[in-house]
């Protein structure tokens, strides 16, 4: 089984965390780091949801699908004795933070559908009836619908064989932000461990 996008906080995480890992139980430490970093990723996605210009929706005059908010809800974490991993399902496309993202049709389909009209934004071609297929060249086609009032055809979806989305590091927090969050979570962890609540003293 092949699972989604994730990044693991495991190497080069700063001398503080490296020293801690030499000294202390890593399971609860990694869990604390995972929670903190996952929350930071959710906060970042929430910020993008509220502030990014939603360029495609705006260009088409459509209502944004709140893609980043849905991604924030989907963020989870897993941890064990050696690492903490932040898990984000791949269908949100956030792996483009780490490099260009090539999207190709799945499940035997030949085309990707790209919304060309505000009524198709955030929707799938399968939700519409009576669409006409027009191929322009080997790697470009469109699905046309007819205007209800004038019966004039208009492109509802562009169809492409593949799409390459450029890298955008800003869809996730920067490395230095995540490192600082992880270090402060580790600092809290040590202080609790060294307190009455932690029971080490």
């Amino acid at each position, binding site marked *: *089984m*092949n*699972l*989604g996008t*994730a*990044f693991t906080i*495991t*190497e*080069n*995480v*700063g001398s503080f965390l490296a*020293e*801690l890992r030499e*000294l*202390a*139980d890593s*399971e*609860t430490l990694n869990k604390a780091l995972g*929670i903190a970093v996952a*929350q*930071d990723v959710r*906060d970042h996605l929430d910020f993008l*949801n*509220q*502030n990014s*210009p939603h360029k495609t929706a705006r260009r088409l005059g459509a209502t944004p699908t*709140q893609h980043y*908010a*849905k991604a*924030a809800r*989907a963020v*989870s974490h897993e941890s064990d004795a050696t690492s903490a991993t932040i898990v984000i*399902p*791949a*269908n949100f496309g956030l792996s483009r933070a*780490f490099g260009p993202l090539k999207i190709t049709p799945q*499940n035997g389909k030949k085309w990707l559908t790209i919304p060309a009209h505000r009524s198709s934004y955030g*929707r*799938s071609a*399968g*939700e519409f009836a009576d669409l006409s297929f027009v191929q322009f060249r080997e790697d470009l086609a469109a699905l046309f619908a007819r205007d209800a009032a004038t019966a004039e055809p208009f492109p509802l979806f562009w169809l492409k064989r593949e799409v390459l989305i450029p890298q955008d590091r800003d869809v996730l*927090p*920067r*490395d*230095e932000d*995540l*490192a*600082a969050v992880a*270090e*402060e979570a580790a600092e*809290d962890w*040590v*202080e609790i*461990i*060294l307190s*009455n*609540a*932690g*029971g*080490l003293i």
Partner: protein
Amino acid sequence: MPLVLTRPTSPSRAFALARERELLPSALGSREQREQLAGELRSKSVFSARVTSETFLFAIKRVVESIVGDARDEGDERVSGMSLAEGRATLLNVLQALGYTPEGGFPDSLGVVPPAVAGSLQDLSSRRRLDLILNTQIALLQGRGQRDQGRDASTLIFYPAWELVRLEQSRVPRDWIDRFEQAGGTVLTDPDGFVRLAAHKNDPVWDALGDSALFDDALDVDHPPFAFNSGMGWREISAREYAALGGVTVPTSSRPAGESILPENTATLPDADALRRVLDRFQARRQSGRRVSAATLREQNRARLLERFDLEERGQG
């Protein structure tokens, strides 16, 4: 700090919960389902108001698994990783194949369910209804997964509280501050004067917030989204942040001195003096100004992003 891009080693908790669910066909409406079906049964079942078709419920189950799970079976069959739109299209196809109509329902259960107005929330093939089914089930599974992960003994000590926050924007937002108070919660104010709806993870407010006896649209759960189409979610609140808000952090109870909260299977307990020295060095770096806080870095990054978005909006990005 380079992060290592990898594949997670196990499915998300939400995906595991989705896979465990059983089908529960029912001609009951949503209110009757909440009144007549036990909460435990509902939490482990796939059901929707007035959906009598097992085939359609199975399709809902598979689509929801696909959206929350992002997994593929052997041979790369895409059993998951669907978008919401693909999920809606899949369910529409299934309804058409089953011969469903809003007026008559499913052909094998004619007359069991009252006729629905096409396009209304009662019409299973309407976009509103399909969105409601999928968004509610996905958010419930993710919320339950977050609750389960956040409640184990050590997590309760390091991250003892949840904060209720709006994740998705709503056209007509409900008054969640009022609901939080009605549910018995204490509204907190942070040092910057902002209202914060935070409470200990074991506080009864979470149960009450999702109780349909108190709120008509509630889903009878003790986790987000609490109510239909709420758009609400949880933030994890650390012990430090919760204390700064005035919340009660760690119960001062019962653990005998010297008994660590670290798991029993920990081979050796860390040396407290060595830990203290490492911590002191770390904090000294901050005091000397050689380390920037996470909050400062976050604010700097957000200011940069707002500039970028502004340029993009003006067509210069």
